[in-house]
């Protein structure tokens, strides 16, 4: 299912992927597990530090940082570590950054990604196995997939409705920055069925569904092979390894 990767025969554990923890972050241990399962080394990053510890990529995981009380991600984006993440993402080195769920919300609040998330149109928390189409397989986090490929990963959130003005949406579409779209049902009313987007350079990607919950057979979403068998999320982590190692070679 994954493209043959350029990562074979290399020492993957040399690749360091940081996972940020804010107060109220929930899926940090899960994201770290996904990183380890992909072969890379997971590095714990603490929101209050201002040191990225030489990581090659950063995952901002899901949860309810600061309770999501004001707006999801609103308080976290001011964390000292986020200043470093924003600089590194915008620098020439183009640090790969993935925001999952609350991480995506933090990235929009930080203006690394356009638009914002509001409450689901049905106003309830929703947890479901969600089919997504990979619309852009050229980003730092999706290059192990094929464009047009459908993947299933869990979705779970309360404020998951992606919104942006029409001009922004048109630009995202035109530039190929709509990276994932909901297939089947739109679970939250997101504009144009958008589940995830990227920045112009393709190193920063954010999405509401949770690839880190689809990395281990037995604990993932349902797939045709049976309940809990889905591992479609592994491609995110394989992709970033491709990106890191390609960068290392260059």
């Amino acid at each position, binding site marked *: 299912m994954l493209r043959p990767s350029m990562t074979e025969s290399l020492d993957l554990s040399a690749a360091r992927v940081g996972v940020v923890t804010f107060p*109220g972050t929930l899926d940090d241990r899960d994201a770290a597990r996904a990183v380890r399962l992909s072969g890379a080394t997971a590095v714990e990053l603490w929101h209050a530090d201002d040191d990225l510890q030489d990581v090659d990529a950063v995952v901002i995981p899901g949860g309810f940082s600061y309770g*999501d009380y004001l707006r999801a991600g609103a308080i976290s984006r001011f964390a000292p570590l986020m200043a470093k993440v924003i600089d590194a993402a915008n620098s020439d080195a183009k640090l790969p950054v993935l925001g999952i769920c609350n991480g995506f919300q933090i990235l929009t609040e930080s203006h690394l990604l356009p638009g914002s998330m509001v409450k689901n149109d049905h106003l309830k*928390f929703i*947890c479901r196995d969600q089919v997504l189409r990979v619309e852009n397989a050229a980003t730092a986090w999706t290059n192990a997939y094929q464009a047009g490929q459908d993947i299933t990963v869990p979705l*779970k959130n309360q404020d998951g409705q992606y919104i942006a003005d029409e001009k922004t949406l048109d630009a995202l579409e035109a530039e190929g920055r709509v990276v994932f779209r909901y297939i089947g049902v739109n679970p939250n009313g997101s504009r144009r069925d958008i589940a995830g987007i990227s920045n112009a350079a393709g190193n920063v990607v954010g999405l509401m569904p949770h690839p880190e919950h689809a990395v281990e057979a037995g604990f993932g979403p349902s797939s045709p092979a049976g309940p809990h068998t889905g591992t479609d999320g592994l491609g995110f982590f394989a992709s970033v390894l491709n990106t890191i190692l390609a960068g290392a070679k260059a």
Partner: protein
Amino acid sequence: MDTVVNAAATPETELPWAELGLKDNEFARIKEILERRPTAAELAMYSVMWSEHCSYKSSKVHLRQFGDKVTEEMKEHLLVGIGENAGVVDIGDGWAVTFKVESHNHPSFVEPYQGAATGIGGIVRDIISMGARPVAVMDPLRFGAIDHPDTARLVHGIVSGIGGYGNSLGLPNIGGEVVFDSVYQGNPLVNALAVGVLRHEDIRLANASGVGNRVVLFGARTGGDGIGGASVLASESFDDAKPSKRPAVQVGDPFAEKVLIECCLELFKASIVDGIQDLGAAGISCATSELASNGEGGMHVELTSVLLRDPSLTPGEILMSESQERMMAVVTPENVAAFEAVMAKWDVEYSWLGEVTDTGRLIIDWDGETIVDVDPRTVAHDGPVYNRPFHRPEWLDALQADSFAASDQAEVPADLGAAVVELISSPNLASKSWVTDQYDRYVQGNTAQAMPDDAGVIRVDENTGLGVALSTDANGRYCYLNPREGAKLALAEAYRNVATSGARPLAVTDCLNFGSPEDPEVMWQFAESVSGLADACQELGVPVTGGNVSLYNHTASGDKTVAIHPTPVVGVLGVFDDVARRTPSGWREDGQAIYLLGT
């Protein structure tokens, strides 16, 4: 200020003991224990700690059977049994699991969202205080008739409250129940179960030992939560009724609790705390008296050190407050700095209240003057015990005689298809996904089974696949017909659900939801259910490790009250050597053979 000195000097002062729910014999006992009248603060403590909710005064004599009917063999895997915040079970390889189910029925009727949310918050703190990382929750629920005008308010509020709190804590919801029955109309049941995992050496107990060790309160500030009913205490002198607003409901702050979980785990990992206790019902009264009476010495506390959200609280109110998201710990002087560093890292407020002494007394000062001077055991453990009268209800014979076979429903309906549709669309048999889709079942990445399976399954050890299965069950109608057999059936069903998932059942927790203990017929239902459950546990070889009793569950009907059906919710925990071996429920593939086992 009503100090101990003042109380001794003014024996004739009128005290609002009746308003605080004490009976005259109970108040007399307090005076006898103290050999003087209690101070306002002492009265506050005794009244909450001797309430039905905290003292189990009506149920104690029956609950003893859970201990009496346990054999050595049944205790083989028990590391901590009944009596602590939650039981702890050895599951092998140095791992242990702690679990417990509790009720938050009455608060959830008043304010469904917050009542249910704080129900989850409370049970999770019980689990943390054992030294464990909470790993999952479950929520057995009972509502009134689905088409009653008030039911929607309760269902929407309670389900989103459970989801809102549990999801924000990062705890997968791995099962529960949803039952609609008009008998729960004015009194829904909101039971919440939490399970946590720990290494054997990490077990923490609620006791204050070691003279000179420091006592600290940390987490949320103390407000007037949950003392609305006891607002007589807003006036220290009891006569000038000064205006006071005390919230009757508690609002939960799941973010604060999530931070509290992580910061407690860090304290445990670095062995910074010696004893720890969560604050739930009866707040500081409960935490100080239980910590002190479980330890060998005493405790001396300065109450003005408590950080307040509402500065107008009186000492009695501070002692009774049920503000959420608080913990109390005992720390050796060497570890004070390390403790403060962890609090700073997680941005958690704390205040040092006092220290462990060797006096055998719990002494609480207010600005240097003593307002409480008691033997902590008399507050926490030696409360009143009632052997309430009970008798078999006279209506039971008629009810039991009204059998299904005798009714005209026994005929096979002409259109079986329509009957099936009718059955599967009845609210109690229909899919529960409207509820369960609002709960995160993936977080933590260890959920091997959740809804729609018979038992929830959680992996404990990533290296070996060691894990646990849990199921909760109860059938109020069976128990109404026959409380003894009904309780046995509840255990049998939960046990079967765990066993069919492939796990070996090891231990039991229960939440006994009943009507008023002052009604001899309800008391009989209670006695029968407990005895039936204890017998069944013995027969199946699984011990009860802890649980909760919720009484006075009834719906007003005219000027009478109608008790709920007796509803003993039973949770069974089982162990897997490798969760990869679990068996999900439901058909999987075409062509597989179907067998029906049993009688």
